[in-house]
């Protein structure tokens, strides 16, 4: 289970998160939507401490971290939390000097100290799972955006995280490549992977989410099932955002 309470984060004078509370049960999918600048990416990056919150608590994978008064978080805590989370970035961020397989093995070998044979075996399984069994020896620049993002998903899964974090995983992709990435994420959802996904793909969000959070200006406007958030909201700002999206589609 993941639980966040009263999470605050500022960048200088700019308050990005103004008291976020949420819970996510094991095996569930949480989708975060909202206009740009609403703080959704920052919130996601707090899950694996790429951003350190100023205030609040985070409970994840048996760790409970209290950020009260900018308290220094022990390095060991940060590292063990990151090993229990995997992240998929908008711009893939694959390691360009390693093959697909190298990318998927890297965390296993360097961080988890698995033997190369074990790491390779798991790496090949994961690449097959995301449909890239024939691309294990390709370097990132030899792959399409959709293929790169699928390698990135395999890399994030390789360290056997308890939760996968997706930061707009399809925003940098050509429209015709979005489907292959969403398909992999749907499959993971069906297998019961716990996931937190920031996305602009509303139809996908409605399909895959157990819970949707709609954020605006650093607070949660609406929280509930896709039905509740996307169809039944009465919040004027939420309606404004949703209508604009529907207008685009």
């Amino acid at each position, binding site marked *: 289970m993941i639980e966040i309470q009263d999470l605050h984060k500022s960048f200088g004078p700019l308050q990005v998160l103004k008291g976020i509370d949420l819970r996510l049960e094991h095996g569930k999918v949480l989708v975060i939507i909202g206009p740009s600048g609403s703080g959704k990416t920052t919130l996601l990056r707090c899950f*694996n401490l*790429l951003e350190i919150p100023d205030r609040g608590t985070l409970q994840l994978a048996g760790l409970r971290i209290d950020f009260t008064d900018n308290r220094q978080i022990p*390095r060991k805590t940060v*590292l*063990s939390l*990151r*090993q229990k*989370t*995997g*992240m998929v*970035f908008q*711009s893939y*961020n*694959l*390691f*360009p*000097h*390693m093959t697909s397989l190298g990318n998927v093995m*890297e*965390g296993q070998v*360097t*961080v*988890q100290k698995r033997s190369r044979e074990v790491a390779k075996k798991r790496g090949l399984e994961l690449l097959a799972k995301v449909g890239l069994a024939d691309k294990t020896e390709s*370097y*990132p*620049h030899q792959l399409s955006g959709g293929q790169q993002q699928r390698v990135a998903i395999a*890399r*994030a899964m*390789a*360290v056997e995280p308890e939760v996968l974090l997706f930061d707009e995983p399809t925003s940098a992709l050509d429209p015709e490549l979005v489907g292959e990435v969403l398909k992999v994420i749907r499959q993971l959802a069906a297998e019961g992977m716990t996931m937190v996904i920031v996305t602009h793909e509303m139809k996908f969000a409605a399909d895959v989410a157990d819970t949707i959070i709609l954020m605006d200006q650093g607070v949660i406007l609406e929280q509930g099932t896709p039905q509740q958030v996307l169809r039944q909201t009465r919040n004027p700002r939420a309606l404004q955002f949703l209508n604009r999206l529907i207008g685009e589609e």
Partner: protein
Amino acid sequence: MDDRKLHIFLDSLLPLFKAGVAYTIPLALVSFALGLLLAVVTALVRLSSWRIPQLIARFYVWVIRGTPLLVQLFIIFYGLPSVGIVLDPFIAAVIGFTLSVGAYSSEVVRAAILSIHKGQWEAAFSVGMTRVQALRRIILPQAARVSVPPLSNSFISLVKDTSLAASITYVEMFRTAQQITATTYEPLLLYCEAALFYLLFCSVLSVLQNMLERRFDRYSAR
């Protein structure tokens, strides 16, 4: 060219080549290897948040870049004995050139590290790596690729700069040319011959640079 000159030219080929291979190249290689190590350490210190070491690193780069290499070599070899430090010419030369390579190349290494997109750090952190692991496995290998052309420049400059060691009695290729000149009185011939050898060595390095870049190109789309 008359017979006598041709003879001097041919007779000098082997001694010059030997001096190059046995003295110039080892001096350049040792100094560059140590200098590169110093450069990486200096660059990392300057990118770190440790205040005092950072000041020391900046001071070091400032002093070495702001004073002539020849003067530095003279201080090390002719000056230090006054305070009881007497160094072998080779050691003195290695110290001088290492300090020089370290200072100039630290800026190259620092720029190369800064040129790596911050998403690479984040991707490394997201799989649980420490800063040191991220640096060693992800950042430095990519920075190395970026650094090959400018560092090749440094190395080629260094090979030529080793001729300055002649002035602190280290008998490398140029000093050998001077010695042959002293007995043959053919400065134009001998110094041109030495220049040709420097040109040859540097050409080989350029070829090696190209091979290295091509090797790295396997994983870069550019």
